[in-house]
Each structure stands twice: as structure tokens, then as C-alpha cells.
């Protein structure tokens, strides 16, 4: 019996010490982890916007995150956007704007949540749920960043996920206010090395650059070899002016498929197509509502 007690005691003691060590580490690292993750995303985003390397990011630039939710209650479903309100520069807090499926405004609820916490999905969900009350269930779907410069919109950053050849492919897509593509970055994928994995190469993803919204809406994949000059321009092997020329030349062309990886190529281009089309449709509705209801937003 004494033996047994000793075992229990020592095991408990060990567990407590272990828990203490792990807990401490967790507390110590958790903040850094979030900060680093955010920084990484930020880096990609800036690179997409053209601020790579050591370029200064202008003070006047603002980034405003929009979180989209699907809200379900007794009556049916509606779409909710958590967005920052108030003028640029002042912290007006966040507001949850609900829009009906047909695009009509339903209501607006103020959500008390800090800039820090809004990035954490758990915290954010909790705050919205509290603001909305218990009879509604919310499901987070996606988030978009609206980039402004001097209060003018300069770009939208969309993150999305769609099925590739093997698993999901996650991308960040940058659009200009006319919904033409500024750039595309592949964040996660598990495509085959040498084949589908080439989607992360410049010569593939840069093909989307400068494609106008009209083209993106119906973009297809062409199975033919890519012309050498286009390849060089995409890879950045020619000087900027010449590259721009060539890029303009091909802006209305379909996407050249990766050799041997048509499925991955099609997956990315239809993913981009779908994301852009849906976003354009939704943002128009949202802008419409914001204007009608005269909700002041910093973008």
C-alpha cells in the first residue's frame, strides 16, 4: 500500500512539474507564435503589393480586414461581415453587418473586440457570438484585406483554398479595385514535385498577373507549349520594360497549362476564377449596403 501511495505521489509530482514546464513554455511562446505567423502573412502580402525586399511601406497605406460569416437563425441564412468602422486613422471598433441572401441590408451590430484579438479566430467568434445573442449560429468562411492608400482603395487581398490534384491548395490573391489580378501567391499545397508543385513557380503563377476581370471571369487552361519570350518575361529574366510589354501582349490569353500537370493548372485557374467572381459579386453588394446605410468604413 505504501508502495502504491509512493507511486501515485511521485507520478503526480512528475506530472505537475511537467505540466508546469509545458505551460510556461506555452505562455512564453504563444505570443511570439502569433506575431510571427502574422508577420509571415504580412510579408507575403506586401510582396504581392510590390513592396518586396527593403522597400519602405508608405505611412499612408492602410490595411483593413473583412471577415465573412454565414449566419443561421430561425428564419434562414444570411451573410455577415465583421468590418472596422469609422474613419481611417481612428479606432472606431468593429461592426457586424448582416446582409440577406438577396443583398438587402438586415442589421448592424457593434462588436467590442480589440485589434489584437480580432485576428484570432476563437476570440473573434466569441465576441461576435456575444454581440449577436444566442439564437444565431455563425460560421466563419473567409477573410479579405482591403488595402487603401490615402483612403483610396488600391487593392484587395483574398485568401482561399480549393482542391488541387492531391490535397487543398491555399493561395493569397491580390486584386486591384477593378478586380484585375495584381498577383498570386501559393501558400500551401502538396502537389507532386516536378509536376503540380510547379504551380508555385513564377512562370506559372505570374501568368495571372495583369489579367483583367473580364478575362478572369471566363479563364481557361490551354494545353500548348508556352512561348519562350513569355516564359522569360514571367520568370523576370528580361528587363522590366520589355517584360511589361510582353505581359501586356499575353494579358488576354488563357493560362498555359503546366506540362504533365493539367489537373493542378486547371485547379488553380478555376480556383482563381471562382474566388474573383464571388468576391466581385459580394463586394458590390456590400458596398451597395454600406452606401445605402451610410455606414462609415475606413476603406
Amino acid at each position: 500500500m505504501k508502495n502504491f501511495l509512493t507511486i501515485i505521489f511521485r507520478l503526480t509530482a512528475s506530472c505537475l512539474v511537467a505540466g508546469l514546464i509545458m505551460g510556461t513554455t506555452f505562455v512564453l511562446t504563444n505570443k511570439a507564435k502569433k506575431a510571427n505567423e502574422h508577420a509571415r502573412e504580412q510579408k507575403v502580402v506586401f510582396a504581392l503589393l510590390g513592396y518586396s525586399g527593403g522597400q519602405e511601406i508608405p505611412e499612408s497605406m492602410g490595411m483593413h480586414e473583412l471577415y465573412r460569416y454565414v449566419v443561421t437563425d430561425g428564419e434562414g441564412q444570411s451573410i455577415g461581415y465583421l468590418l472596422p468602422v469609422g474613419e481611417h486613422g481612428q479606432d472606431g471598433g468593429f461592426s457586424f453587418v448582416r446582409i440577406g441572401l438577396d443583398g438587402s441590408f438586415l442589421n448592424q451590430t457593434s462588436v467590442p473586440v480589440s485589434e489584437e484579438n480580432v485576428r484570432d479566430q476563437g476570440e473573434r467568434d466569441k465576441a461576435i457570438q456575444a454581440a449577436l445573442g444566442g439564437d444565431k449560429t455563425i460560421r466563419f468562411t473567409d477573410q479579405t484585406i482591403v488595402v487603401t492608400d490615402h483612403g483610396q482603395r488600391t487593392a484587395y487581398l483574398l485568401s482561399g483554398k480549393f482542391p488541387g490534384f492531391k490535397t487543398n491548395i491555399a493561395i493569397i490573391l491580390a486584386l486591384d479595385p477593378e478586380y484585375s489580378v495584381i498577383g498570386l501567391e501559393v501558400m500551401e499545397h502538396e502537389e507532386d514535385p516536378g509536376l503540380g508543385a510547379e504551380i508555385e513557380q513564377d512562370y506559372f503563377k505570374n501568368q495571372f498577373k495583369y489579367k483583367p476581370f473580364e478575362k478572369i471571369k471566363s479563364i481557361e487552361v490551354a494545353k500548348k507549349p508556352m512561348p519562350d519570350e513569355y516564359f522569360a518575361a514571367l520568370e523576370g529574366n528580361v528587363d522590366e520594360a520589355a517584360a511589361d510589354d510582353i505581359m501586356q501582349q499575353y494579358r488576354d490569353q488563357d493560362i498555359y497549362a503546366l506540362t504533365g500537370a493539367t489537373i493542378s493548372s486547371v485547379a488553380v485557374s478555376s480556383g482563381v476564377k471562382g474566388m474573383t467572381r464571388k468576391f466581385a459579386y459580394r463586394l458590390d453588394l456590400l458596398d451597395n449596403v454600406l452606401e445605402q446605410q451610410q455606414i462609415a468604413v475606413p476603406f
Partner: protein
Amino acid sequence: MWNVSVSPHVRSPESVGKIMWTVVACLVPPLVLSIFVFGIQVLLITAVSVISCMAVEAICQKALNKPVTVSDGSAALTGMLMAFVIPPGVSFLIPVLGAVMAIFIGKHLLGGIGYNFFNPALLGRAFLLATFPVAMTSAWLPPLTDGAIFSYLASGVDAVSTATPLAVMKEQGMAAFREAFGTPSEVYGSFFLGWRPGCIGETSGLLLVLGGLYLMYRRYITWHIPVSVLGTIALLTWMFGGETLFTGDPLLAVLTGGALLGAFFMATDYVTSPTTRTAQLIFGAGIGALTVLIRIKGGYPEGVCYAILLMNPLSPVLDGWFKPKRFAPPAGGEK
């Protein structure tokens, strides 16, 4: 002094070398046809493949202090088969690397002929497919129509690549297939004779079948594996290959891809296939089923090679499950 070796004192005239070289000979007509279909570089690729396989075999045997048995033709056959499953437009370096994988790692590290578990030629191909995914899946050439067999060699093969029938069917659908090659009933003939893009060796169904039948006539292979492979492919394609159940095209499935080549020449490889008849039937059916699975649901347009590779290691298992029937076991069972 007379020879006093143990009985039997008479031996059948067959030998390993004779078998292997006969199989190689059976592969020569498809190769010749392939030269007329894709050009003279096909011959060069095959030659490089055969020679490098034989060279690697000789080097391995020398290095391991074993008698050099290159003349038994098994390395030559491996080289021939490996060349047969690569596209006609690849660079000449590719078969050399494949030979190292096939003969050194696939065969001699495991103890040489008779001890490998995977068909060396297919192992070589799987390695090449992983190493040169683009070349191995896109260096297909459209059949020459003018018989100018030197034209690709002179002009280079890069600009003319095309897609294989199965790839078109898988990636672009049946409509695109019809557009590129014609309706199935129109293509049976040309596919059977060999006028379609594809691997070096999968051109002519007719010549492959004739070669296989000759091997059967010589009793080097039996009907069990080829029939069960092709039967299963046809049956399952008919059931699941169409847009709805029971509308697939079994004949097209057998004629396209390496189905005939695989069924007659690769699945029947002695070393990597089971030895009893029941086991062979199951082995063949497994290959057929996996082929159709990969073709319909998998990541590759063509599934025969991987299907055979996947079934190969099962042959020891199947051999263990299906032992030959003993004449009469001792009364009261084994002790």
C-alpha cells in the same frame, strides 16, 4: 574421363538464354514498326537502353565477383522492355539512368536474376517517371505520316509533342478524344495496327498479340496471366469506364495504353509472377483491377505499369497461398 553428374542425364533443349532471347525477338517486330511510326530515334533509344542495361549488369557482376551472364539475355530483355515503356521523344540519357535503377538497385543488390521482387524494367520506368516527370509524361510524338523516319532526329522532337489517347480521354474527356482520334469504332483499326501516339512499344496491338501468341506456342508463357489481365481490364472498363454503369468501351481499354504489352510481356515475367495457375489468375485479375482503378480514379492516365509493380510483391504471397496440389498427402495429414 566421363561426365558422372547426377541424373537426369538428358535435359530439355530449353535454356534461360533461349527463352530470354526469344522474348527479345518477339519484341523486335513492334520495335521495327515503332521506327516507322515515330522515327529512327526510337531505335537509338532502344539500343541505348539495351546496351546500358547489359553494361550495368556486367559491371555489377564483375564488382560482386559473380560470373558475368550478360549473354543470357535477361538484361537485354529488361533494356528492351524499359525502352518500350518510355515515350519516343525523350533524351538518350534517360534510359541510361533507368538502367542503373533497374539493373543495379532493382536486381543485383537483391541477389541477381531470380531474386528480385519487382519487374526491373518497370522499376526503372517508375524511377524515370519520378525523376523526369515532365519528359516522361509529355515527350509523345504524333505518328509520322510520310514515312520520313529521320525527320524528328533532324528537327528535334520538342516542338511536336502530342498527348496519348488515354491522357486525352482522362484529362479532356471523351469528346476531345473523338475530336483528336475519331470515334472508338474508327480507332480500333489504327490502334490495332499501331498508328497512334504512345510509348515506343505500345504501338501495334497486332504485333504484340502475335508475339505473345508465339510465346504461348513455344510454351514459354501460358494463357493464364494475359487472359486474366486483359479480361479483367475489359470487364471492369465495361462496367465502370463509361459515364454510367455498363457503358465503357472494353475494346478501346485493351487496345490503348500498355495493356497488351503489359499483359503479354511484363506481367508474365517469370521472376516476379506467381508460379501456380490459380495464383497466376488472381495475379492477373489483380493487375487488371488495379489498372482500371488507376485509369479511372487514379492520378495517371495509364495504369498497367504501376498495377504490375503493385502486384509483383504479392506473388510470393500468392505462391504461398496457392501451393500446387500435392499428389496425395500422407494419410492423416502433415505432421
